[in-house]
């Protein structure tokens, strides 16, 4: 089916595949686009190219702690947040007390990771729309965060840094200094990003009024994170259902307001991420000030993890949205069932609802603005 118009002059729909090797599908996603000329009438995402049986593996590990490196590999762009969600879930199951210092380090790490993840998300979004320069500048900043992580945990991407009720190793002595230095140097870079990309007219023309997601649709699809906040709904688990020690910090929840066009368009989702980075910096500053210098981060780690029989759902705010772990324990050494509620999966399922009627070229913008990671979609 190549011709759009038949010999009799009837209109005919055309089906094309976008992906799985398309550079702007953020991994291995195949979108089946049904087109009427250049206008998309239907979209069908095909997933599963990166399926690695995370949930089944978790049942076969014979140890709750052995699952943590696998959670890293779900959303490899924000591994710290994935670990954080899992350890919070296990700690709630075991009703464990987590040392103060551990909590502070975790929050700093999680927020740094949020910034790193948003930097990649924003950078790749710009890259999809033809803005190559911001991508490189943002990656320079992301590199600094990864350097801090590497010094602390020994790895750059998949950290396996958080353990149940502790950390795998203590941070290096100059950790606080490095983090404060980063916060100082990073603030002006957000202004730079605004000049370069956020308020660039070409960028605005490509993103405003595109892929509009009304708040009601977002809520019906159970969207969360920046996608939901881009539609103007003030919902952040760090504030609305505080876990860890997030209730101690002062920060705001940035929401989209339809500044450049309609409420809930691609630009709104984008700008929420930019403003969230500023709020993350605020949290990091407060956490660095409050972090105790003394304390063994490995002392409270239990030798054997055997939760009571029962089930639990714990949710945390990952850079992409609500990351939930539903864990069922049957009192044995390995979990009976682990289910991860991945925000990327939920947001991807929303794609058909927000992209019918858009042009092919805008499809790239819409996929970029929901910021999915295929590792998390397929798990």
């Amino acid at each position, binding site marked *: 089916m190549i011709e759009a118009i038949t010999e009799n002059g009837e209109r005919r729909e055309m089906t094309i595949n976008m992906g799985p090797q398309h550079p702007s599908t953020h991994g291995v996603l195949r979108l089946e686009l049904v087109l009427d000329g250049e206008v998309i009438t239907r979209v069908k995402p095909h997933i599963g190219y990166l399926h690695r049986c995370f949930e089944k593996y978790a049942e076969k590990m014979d*140890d709750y702690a052995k699952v943590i490196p696998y959670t890293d590999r779900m959303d490899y762009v924000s591994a710290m947040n994935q670990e954080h969600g899992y350890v919070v879930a296990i700690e709630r199951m075991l009703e464990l007390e987590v040392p103060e210092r551990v909590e502070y380090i975790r929050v700093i790490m999680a927020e740094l990771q949020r910034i790193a993840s948003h930097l990649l998300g924003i950078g790749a979004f710009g890259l999809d729309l033809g803005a190559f320069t911001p991508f490189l500048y943002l990656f320079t900043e992301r590199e600094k965060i990864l350097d801090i992580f590497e010094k602390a945990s020994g790895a750059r991407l998949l950290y396996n840094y958080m353990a149940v009720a502790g950390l795998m190793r203590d941070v290096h002595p100059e950790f606080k200094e490095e983090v404060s230095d980063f916060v100082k140097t990073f603030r002006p870079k957000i202004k730079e990003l605004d000049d370069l990309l956020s308020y660039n007219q070409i960028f605005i023309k490509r993103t405003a009024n595109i892929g509009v997601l009304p708040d009601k649709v977002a809520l019906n699809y159970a969207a969360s994170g920046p996608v939901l906040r881009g539609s103007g709904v003030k919902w952040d688990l760090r504030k609305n259902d505080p876990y860890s020690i997030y209730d101690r910090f002062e920060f705001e929840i940035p929401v989209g307001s339809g500044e450049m066009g309609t409420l809930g368009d691609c630009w709104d989702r984008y700008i929420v991420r930019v403003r969230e980075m500023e709020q993350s910096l605020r949290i990091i500053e407060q956490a660095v000030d409050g972090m105790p210098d003394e304390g063994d981060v490995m002392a409270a780690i239990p030798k054997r993890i055997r939760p009571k029989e029962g089930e639990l759902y714990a949710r945390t705010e990952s850079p992409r949205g609500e990351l939930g772990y539903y864990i069922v324990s049957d009192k044995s050494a390995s979990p009976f069932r682990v289910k991860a509620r991945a925000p990327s999966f939920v947001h991807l399922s929303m794609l058909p609802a927000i992209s019918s009627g858009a042009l092919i070229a805008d499809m790239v913008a819409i996929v970029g603005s929901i910021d999915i990671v295929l590792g998390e979609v397929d798990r």
Partner: protein
Amino acid sequence: MVSAFKNSWITFKSIFTGMGVTIRHFFGPSVTLQYPDERAVLPKDTRAKLYVNIDDCIGCNLCARACPVNCIDIETVVATSDVDLGKTSTGNPKRFWLTRFDIDMAKCMYCDLCVHPCPTFCIYMVPEYEYSEYDRTNLIYHFSNLEPAMVAEVKEKAEKEAAEKQRQREEMMRKKAEEAKIKQMEAKKKAEENNSGENDAQSSKPENGDP
């Protein structure tokens, strides 16, 4: 008409604002490392490659059990009583010959979980990252320092001793069993005699009276 000009002006301005940022970066310091010529200095506890200090290994198998991907393969043979393997640098006595200690770095996922349970701190990550190979089997690192002949000898010795011990144990068991049997038999006899004595008290009285 006016709005069209206004829009053009805004677009023009925003492009040049961005250009300004780019030009500023142009005169800034370079951040790229020219890799083969320059190398980044890695922190000393970077997780890049597993290393085992085999002299300190006691063959406890904890690391292999902690590994989520089963990339550590350990085979141990009990040291016979005539050899003393000495102690590790941490003071733990060594009781096993390590006939095989293989780590498959192609399988390893650098999670660091094997490092923490080690009682003698002999398995750890080293910041060495340039070890690509053309053949995947070359990524299996053999840490055991025993020669094949030595391995065979050690195994034979251990088997012999185990067999000897097994034999001794069986002997012991048999003896015990026999003794128990005899005891049982005696007890039974006594009981029977008692019974018969009670039944026929008159006739058996003199016998019972004997010490």
